[in-house]
């Protein structure tokens, strides 16, 4: 519409010889034309901005000041097989989470919301996404326990365990606070402090954003649909 407006303006002074429409216009008309164009550009910008905001930014995530590369570690999956984390997730959008099965709050809520989200996602989108849950409590969370836990939410979620050293290395590489096991209580139970954010790795194996907590299903559905190429 911008073009049509200026063209009709320029076409008005038919009388004079070809000096080009802009030059014939009085300065005042130029100012008006510029104002109209500016107004339209601003309007278009606002609409684009609004659409981007509503479809892309859920405001549920936090941009990482320092992007993080996918940890280059080989862990053990729920079949007891080696799982080369960087290799296996390369070219895919990967949601990486460190947690443990005796965690009653953040871990199952995150996984439940992601499970419900995956149920809602378009199959094409879903096919390009992985959820990888890495335990920070390898002494209690073996491959079978991990599988049982994750099957509550989605049988496709990947569960990984490893040695204490491997898992510590993975957490350091991912830039999350390393989980620390509290001393066991009289029942031999112990709590494992752990990071509660989900790291989202793009197809280039770099994480640029994290989802700290309390992310709604609708936010995940919108954001994940935007993060993969369809």
């Amino acid at each position, binding site marked *: 519409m911008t073009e049509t407006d200026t063209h009709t303006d320029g076409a008005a002074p038919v009388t004079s010889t070809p000096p080009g429409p802009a030059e014939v216009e009085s300065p005042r008309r130029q100012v008006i034309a510029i104002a109209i164009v500016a107004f339209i550009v601003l309007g278009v910008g606002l609409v684009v901005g609004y659409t981007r905001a509503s479809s892309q930014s859920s405001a549920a995530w936090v941009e990482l000041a320092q992007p993080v590369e996918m940890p280059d570690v080989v862990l053990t999956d729920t079949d007891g097989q080696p799982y080369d984390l960087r290799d296996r997730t390369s070219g895919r959008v990967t949601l990486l989470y460190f947690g443990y*099965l*005796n*965690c*009653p*709050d*953040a871990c*199952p*809520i*995150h996984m*439940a*919301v992601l499970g*419900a989200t995956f149920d809602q996602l378009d199959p094409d989108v879903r096919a390009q996404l992985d959820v990888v849950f890495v335990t920070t409590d390898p002494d209690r969370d073996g491959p079978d326990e991990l599988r049982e*836990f994750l099957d*509550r939410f989605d049988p496709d979620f990947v569960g990984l365990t490893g040695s204490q050293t491997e898992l510590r290395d993975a957490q350091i590489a991912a*830039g*999350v*606070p390393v989980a*620390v096991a*509290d001393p066991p*209580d009289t*029942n031999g*139970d112990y*709590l494992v*402090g*752990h*990071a*509660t*954010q989900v790291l989202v790795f793009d197809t280039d194996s770099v994480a640029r954003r*994290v989802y*700290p*907590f*309390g*992310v*709604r*299903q609708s936010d995940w559905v919108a954001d994940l649909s935007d993060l993969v190429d369809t």
Partner: protein
Amino acid sequence: MKPARRLTLIAAGAVLAGCAQTANAPSTLTVDRARVGATPAGADAAAYFDIRAGGDDRLTGAVTDAAARASLHEMRDADGGGIMTQVDAVDLPAGIEVRFEPFGDHVMLEDLERDLRPGDNVTITLSFADHASIDVEATVVALVDLAEENR
């Protein structure tokens, strides 16, 4: 002037102490919105609620009919996220609503003895430093709903 002022302060202090003593006996304490995340038997669940104590108090423990043990967990800020830590007690400042909520403080119900399905009820007995123990009926809610209530 100085001695007079001191006397006034002492008098005020005596009045305050007197108030605290009388208020202590029947101190009010309310627990609202008690809920537990749906969790299968054998796993650990989290219970949440809002507590408001009339006088300064502390939540010192919990037991439940649904699990062998229950413990208090507090979310503490940490670099790049929160760290969940087990604590012996949670402070309940007078007149302040203390919210136990998803991704925050909660009571952990360890090693559930039965499946907790949305709509079920769980009895949790909370004990306090000053106030008598309170039995709370918590409603079981879906985990996804717990995420929705946040923010």
